[in-house]
């Protein structure tokens, strides 16, 4: 390289390890902080139960075991409950990809909830308008409508960010509430609203519905699965495909590479000739498309799931997605694991209330604490506080604060920039 590379900090010297060892270290390093954050939050949740002691018929400690036991059996205890959990997990994966892909570009898409709402609404409007279309036309068109609606909705925020400098957090929050109230209005208006003023849309025609995994398996493999117990629909497969697409975009395309450069060092990206503005707009549109799919697949996957007013503003999927993206460290596999965790907490909380008499909102408290611990990079702080021989060997990989820091930390010198640009890029190349 012609430009002299000035290393500001000596890279950490590690003894060469075996391939297996280095792999373990690599995944251990990224797994460490989120896993510890989740464990800490679960412990905190146990303390909340201990203090409040909701079920006075058993001892408080027994109450904790009952609650967490029910949380587990209610989410992953049986095939039927796993199936129910996956119903929650599938839109969560879509929405989390939406948050995560924006994160990669250093953008905070807080508007997944609104993009989900417009996506679901668009799909619903298409489905209710073209009721005579056959399944193989209607379903793709509905999915496409949700993708477009979500992409446009988030694209507005991307456009404002790229060309008008409006902070995407603010604009996506505003767009969220416009989406919530706007969909409420449409849900309650002709021609989509159900009669008798029940604040819902009419049910979709049957051919607009995505088949259940169970009924599909019954048809193809001749199994005898009960579609009343196994309610997960094929959207879970779509979600897995979406994860693969996300992984591909991020780690195998030029666009993904450019996104990461923009995310890690926007100045470097500009100096390297990356079309920053266009990419910011594009990544927000793609994020919106994924969130839109979260809405439409949920709508089309579950029978009798009409859109009801205020459903979107109270739906937890939007902020669950932020938690999932952060816990999963924005990697595809991380998102999968984290959405299984958060989706499991959500779907198990009903059983927790029924069996252990603990209010399901405990899950929200746990989720918020996980976010605090990850945001505060509390785990590394805790690690530093430990004596050296006790210290677990991991390094946090995702620092959410880098989003802001990279912009300020660049020294404003005449020729300093050019020198600082290249380490950032070469570091990225090393990461691959």
């Amino acid at each position, binding site marked *: 390289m012609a430009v002299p590379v000035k290393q500001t900090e000596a890279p950490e010297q590690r003894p060469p390890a075996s391939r297996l060892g280095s792999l373990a270290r690599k995944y251990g390093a990224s797994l460490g902080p989120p896993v510890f954050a989740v464990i800490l939050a679960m412990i905190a949740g146990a303390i*909340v139960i201990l203090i*409040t002691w*909701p079920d006075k018929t058993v001892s408080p400690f027994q109450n904790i075991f009952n609650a967490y036991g029910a949380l587990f059996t209610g989410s992953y205890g049986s095939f039927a409950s796993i199936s129910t959990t996956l119903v929650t997990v599938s839109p969560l994966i879509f929405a989390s990809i939406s948050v995560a892909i924006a994160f990669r570009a250093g953008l*905070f898409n*807080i508007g997944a909830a609104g993009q989900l709402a417009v996506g679901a609404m668009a799909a619903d409007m298409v489905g209710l308008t073209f009721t005579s279309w056959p399944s193989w036309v209607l379903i793709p068109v509905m999915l496409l409508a949700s993708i477009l609606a979500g992409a446009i909705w988030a694209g*507005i925020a991307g456009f*404002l960010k790229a060309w*008008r400098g*409006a*902070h995407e*957090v*603010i*604009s996506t*929050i*505003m*767009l*969220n*509430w*416009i989406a*919530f*109230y*706007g969909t*409420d*209005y449409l849900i*309650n*208006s*002709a021609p989509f609203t159900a009669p008798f003023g029940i604040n819902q849309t009419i049910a979709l025609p049957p051919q607009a519905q995505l088949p259940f995994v169970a009924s599909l398996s019954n048809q193809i493999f001749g199994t005898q699965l009960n579609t009343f117990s196994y309610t997960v629909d094929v959207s879970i497969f779509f979600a897995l495909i979406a994860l693969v697409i996300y992984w591909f975009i991020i780690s195998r395309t030029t666009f993904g590479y450019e996104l990461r450069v923009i995310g890690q060092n926007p100045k470097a990206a500009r100096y390297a000739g990356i079309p920053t503005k266009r990419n910011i707009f594009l990544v927000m549109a793609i994020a919106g498309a994924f969130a839109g799919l979260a809405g439409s697949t949920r709508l089309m996957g579950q029978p009798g799931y009409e859109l009801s*007013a205020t459903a979107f*503003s*109270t739906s937890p999927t939007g*902020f669950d997605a*932020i*938690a999932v993206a*952060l816990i999963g460290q924005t990697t595809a596999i991380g998102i999968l694991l984290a959405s299984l965790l958060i989706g499991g907490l959500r779907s198990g909380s009903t059983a927790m209330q029924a069996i252990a008499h603990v*209010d399901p*909102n*405990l*899950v*929200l*408290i*746990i*989720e*918020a*604490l996980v*976010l*605090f611990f*990850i*945001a*505060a*990079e*509390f785990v590394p*702080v805790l690690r530093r506080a430990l004596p050296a021989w006790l210290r677990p060997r991991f390094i946090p990989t995702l620092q*959410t*604060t880098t*989003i*802001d*820091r990279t*912009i*300020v*930390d660049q020294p404003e010198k005449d020729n300093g920039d050019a020198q600082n640009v290249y380490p950032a890029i070469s570091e990225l190349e090393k990461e691959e």
Partner: protein
Amino acid sequence: MFFQVLFKALTSSNTWETTLTFAALLVLPALGGVISERSGVVNIAMEGMMLTGAFAAVMITLLFSNIGVSNPLSIILGVLAAMLAGGAMALIHAIVSINFKANQIVSGVAINIFALGLTSYLLFVLTPAGQGVPSLPSTLLLPTLSWGPLSKIPWLGTVLFQQNIVFYIAILILIAVQFLLFSTNIGLRIRAVGEHPQAADTAGVNVRLLRYLCVISSGLLSGLAGAYLSIGVAGVFNTNMTDGKGFIALAAVIFGKYTPLGAAGACLIFGLGYGLSLPLADLSSNQYLPTLLSTLPYVFTLIALVGLVGRTTPPAADGIPYDPASE
């Protein structure tokens, strides 16, 4: 037809009474937001702080009135508890974002989730059979202040001189915050810390302390607004009862260009949305027209962000954790 209804609505004293009630409800967290953002800490958690305040106000007021404390004292204790609860939420936000230098958006989102979870959970645990709290009797609500002969003035009396006590407190706080931020030494320091913390630090300003105070005061104000909502306007506590009002306040902060008076003006406009929503519902056969009108505050703010009505720019160091070692 349309203009007749609109004119009638705009000249009705009821419309403006509702408008001012909601404007006061929004301006308190908005002022908190202005202070916090001016000091350089992004606060999107007014929603959660309001919700905690609303919850604490109802629970503490009921608690003290049930053990025999006189009604006015119970209400005062309830309001204090609401402010403390909002302040406690803000303290978490301050610790996480100032000491741990966390991403302030993540922390804000976490506060909102935490407040929703905590209040709903405690509502279930603390009320008999998890039934929630009953509606408060009018003797346990924040009183309406009637200004004697002034309240008898035909139109103006209803609008201005028969408002809830918090309305007048909000006006006083608005004037105080405007004065504090732009006419005092400490206000100059707050703004300096928000624009260029390194320079302020060099000049001997305690950046962290000032940011702590600003974030906590935003919690106190949001908590007060929560109390106004639960034991003033609604008279009850419901799960998630703030329903996005904290975010409208956030919109007001930005629409008002991060100034107290601007935010208050924005709250007045947004409050008018509430005031007009009932009369305008008669306009259309669709009774859900007000729902559509509810989007207007957010649309206005988006337009302000685009820069059509004068661009809003946040303080330069807004959202960036201060690290003395960084320069």
